[in-house]
């Protein structure tokens, strides 16, 4: 099985779970880790992607969707987490449900030194803002961890981050 096919398979698994949870809007800053998912969002007639200029816009868009009873998620690379904390105050202060899908860099096997500072700060930054961490390391974890994160966000009204680790994604080769 090639790498690409693998990514399409797990992205399809994720997409199906998002659909089952009635997520209709997907904010994203492009990343290799969310590319296949966003292609599926664009190909489906009941889901819509929103290309963001910066990641925190996606946090705000999720809040806006919630205000009218719809469900949105925001997808980003780990480097974008650092742009989000001020807007994540909406979660703690307003009890908005929030689902962030974060594809990691600066993690297991990273070869670009620029990725390490923010990559290693992702979990402490999110925890400081009250966001619950759901981390995927192995393929068999994807389905149950995603399900738990979706339930926490959209049934229990929590702020969550589904973190796709570099062990799961495969480190980028340079």
């Amino acid at each position, binding site marked *: 099985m090639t790498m690409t096919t693998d990514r399409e398979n797990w992205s399809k698994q994720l997409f199906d779970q998002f659909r089952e949870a009635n997520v209709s809007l997907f904010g994203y800053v492009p990343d290799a880790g969310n590319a296949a998912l966003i292609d599926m969002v664009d190909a489906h007639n009941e889901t819509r992607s929103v*290309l963001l200029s910066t990641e925190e816009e996606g946090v705000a868009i999720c809040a806006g969707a919630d205000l009218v009873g719809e469900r949105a998620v925001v997808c980003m690379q780990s480097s974008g987490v650092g742009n989000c904390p001020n807007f994540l105050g909406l979660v703690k202060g307003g009890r908005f449900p929030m689902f962030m899908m974060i594809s990691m860099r600066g993690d297991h096997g990273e070869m670009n030194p620029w990725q390490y500072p923010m990559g290693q700060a992702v979990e402490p930054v999110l925890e400081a803002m009250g966001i619950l961490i759901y981390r995927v390391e192995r393929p068999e974890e994807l389905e149950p961890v995603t399900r738990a994160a979706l339930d926490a966000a959209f049934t229990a009204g929590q702020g969550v981050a589904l973190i796709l680790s570099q062990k799961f994604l495969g480190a980028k080769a340079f």
Partner: protein
Amino acid sequence: MPDSTIDRRDLLTQLMPDPDRYLIITGLAGAARDVAAYTSETDNVLTLGGAMGAAVSIGLGVALSAPDEQVAVVTGDGELLMNVGALATVASMMPDNLTIICIDNGCHGETGGQPGHTSRRTDLALMADGAGLPSTLTVDAPAQLAGAAKFLTEAPAPRFLCVRVQDGPPAAYKRDWDLAACRLRFRQAYLDRKQAG
């Protein structure tokens, strides 16, 4: 300081004679107070007290998720500039139910009136135009407000109106600071109206 003869406290009655026709999201500080005082914070209004830079994106989330509603974002020049890339995101999505009104006083009124970029060389309507919004307009005199109101109902959306105002104080109004309560009120009222058809 913008060369304007508009007093912000006279503005909204002329721009939005029927505020109930919109779902309204405001930025923080002056814009929030102006809208809250004008509407008495009816349940179609959500005002921010923090998360500076989020207003346009929250409004976009509402507009995309409730395509049958008219959505208005009312914010200030500082709040808008803090996340001005959101205008490009709006233009990419082209929601035909979104209106953005910027009350541009050219300064950071809430923190003591320190000058902002629009008091120097920055033109927000040009930035919105450059982002790709189909309709943009700047007004700076009371006589132009009737035309601005017409722009808000007739110009192709998403539309951006910049109202340059004098740097006087916003409306005096004590807002509800409990965002969780405001969220629930806005959300439940919308869902109830939707269910009632």
